[in-house]
């Protein structure tokens, strides 16, 4: 019997929270349409919020204030724009302002290829505002770590998920190579693509390292990884979100500051994510990552349309 996939892990954590820990799970259309990609269990404690997002998010925050540690499901990350006011202006600030926490676990789910208001990946916005922890787990073990971090802290947790990872059964290890031509640090589902890209390049005798980044805020790197990155000729950070002012750029800055080196980035182009195939502006796949790496190695850093 194989290892359980990420969706099953999420469902098990949720069931335990709702059945044994007085928790709540709130959101819109969470107990229908496939039970959020089969990540929501059919049990007590599920609350439908069929209403304007600001009200729904406020109600979820209210349950957090009184200690129910709610899981708040946002089925498409683009909807964070609508839900964000209650999360950003209240939940994230109330602990710092009044020493009264509003611990809420925000399951913000990213996806691809379904148009301009359902395909966004917006974890970068929540890295910007004070008061959140922002993690982007794509494996079962990482999700358990994310949940434990939430339960052991009073900050709201922005858990940036991606639908393309729900069937993932594997843990993903760093590939650390000294004096590599390039180190690729990847975020969210682009880690699966970056891992593939690095394996392909190894087959072509290009020395590459690969680093998983799943804790976006607070962000830190183990010394061992810093050493590997330092020894690397080039560094590239890849993310699911827009490249401009995005998570990749912020993390690249942090890494660059640490090792005093320029860090390249790759994300989504500065264009709307449309619904039709040629204009979907999807997150970087392994092919795009390889092209970017080859251009960096060749010294051509200029063009985003690589």
């Amino acid at each position, binding site marked *: 019997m194989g290892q359980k996939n990420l969706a099953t892990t999420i469902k098990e954590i949720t069931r335990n929270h709702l059945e044994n820990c007085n928790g*709540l799970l709130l959101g819109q259309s969470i107990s229908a349409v496939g039970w959020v990609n089969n990540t929501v269990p059919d049990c007590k404690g599920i*609350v439908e*919020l069929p*209403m*304007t997002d*600001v*009200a*729904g*998010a*406020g*109600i*979820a*925050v*209210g*349950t*957090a*204030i*009184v*200690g*129910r540690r*709610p899981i708040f499901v946002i089925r498409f990350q683009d909807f964070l724009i609508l839900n964000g*006011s*209650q999360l950003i*202006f*209240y939940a994230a*600030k*109330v602990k*710092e*302002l*009044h*020493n*009264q926490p509003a611990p809420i676990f925000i399951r913000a789910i990213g996806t691809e290829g379904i148009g301009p208001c359902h395909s966004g990946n917006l974890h970068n916005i929540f890295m910007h505002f004070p008061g959140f922890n922002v993690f982007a787990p794509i494996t079962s073990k990482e999700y358990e770590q994310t949940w434990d971090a939430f339960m052991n802290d009073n900050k709201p947790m922005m858990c940036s998920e991606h639908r393309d990872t729900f069937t993932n059964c594997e843990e993903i290890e760093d590939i650390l190579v000294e004096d590599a031509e390039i180190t690729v640090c990847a975020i969210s589902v682009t880690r699966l693509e970056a891992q593939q890209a690095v394996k392909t390049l190894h087959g072509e005798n290009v020395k590459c390292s690969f680093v998983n980044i799943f804790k976006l805020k607070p962000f830190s790197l183990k010394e061992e990884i810093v050493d590997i990155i330092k020894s690397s000729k080039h560094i590239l950070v890849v993310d699911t979100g827009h490249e401009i002012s995005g998570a990749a750029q912020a993390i690249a800055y942090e890494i660059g500051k640490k090792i005093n080196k320029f860090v390249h980035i790759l994300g989504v182009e500065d264009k709307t994510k449309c619904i039709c195939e040629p204009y979907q502006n999807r997150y970087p796949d392994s092919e795009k990552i390889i092209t970017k790496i080859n251009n960096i190695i060749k010294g051509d850093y200029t063009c985003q349309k690589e």
Partner: protein
Amino acid sequence: MRLSNFGVLEEAINNIDNTIKLNIYKKMYRSRKFEEGVIESVECKQIKSAVYLSIGQESIAAAIIEALGNKHYVFTQHRCHSTFLSLGGNILKIRDELLGLPTGSSNGKGGSNCLQIHENGINMFGHHGFIGENLPQAVGACFGSNKPTLCFLGDGAIEEDYIYPSIGFAVTHKLPIIIICEDNDLSILTKTEDRRSWDVSEVMKSFGIPSVNMADDPWSIYEKISGLFANTDGPIFLNIKTCRIKWHAGIGADKMHEWDRFSIVKEELLSLGLGSQLTVIEEEVNKEMDIVWDKKTLQQLLKK
């Protein structure tokens, strides 16, 4: 209709015990004198951050808290000094909060429109400036705890779109929440007649919520809220017409208020022969305020 006797229960003042009447008066007088101290401190630049004064609106919190005590979760709007004081919040902590001192109720981080306090049985949650945000939060807190909850908001906030789904949720889940619209007729400076043609209490009736629309006569509020509570197991809505005497923010005034409830209440109590009791209350509160707003003390606190 903007009249000081709109919807008022004429017999209410006679139905209420004198002790309760004097308690309500004391809450109102204390709020009024506190705000006068705030104004002086703003004038002499000891309070430097924006203030949102309750002057003119004191009777609402005074009557409601006198009727219900402090067993509720309370979610305030931005104009919340009188609610804080009527609940029995520590007066030195609110003063220090306005002064921006670490000894303030939120360590000087929140300020006037963002007061919050959780001590001595009080659970008052502050407002972060996103108008009407507190109603969905109050509904969520009430749902999550099933504890009686009060939510204060203004007549501008009641126009926000997220208010009505929150009320719908409270109705659907039969939540024990009292929603109080402190209707001063002004959204900053825009009058209700320039903003909408509909009556909020009529909207509430369509939700099936027991609803009251009346002026801020504290005796009527006290009697109404006590009666309504006895006869319902879901949300209750009160639209209480009141007058903001000072600006939306700051200590200036445009003299747009139609009445001053505090003066009316004082006249009523004097006409009932309670003058000597009022004098005792006023002397006691004045002494307290002399200490709270003593200029030398404030200078020392601000020097630290």
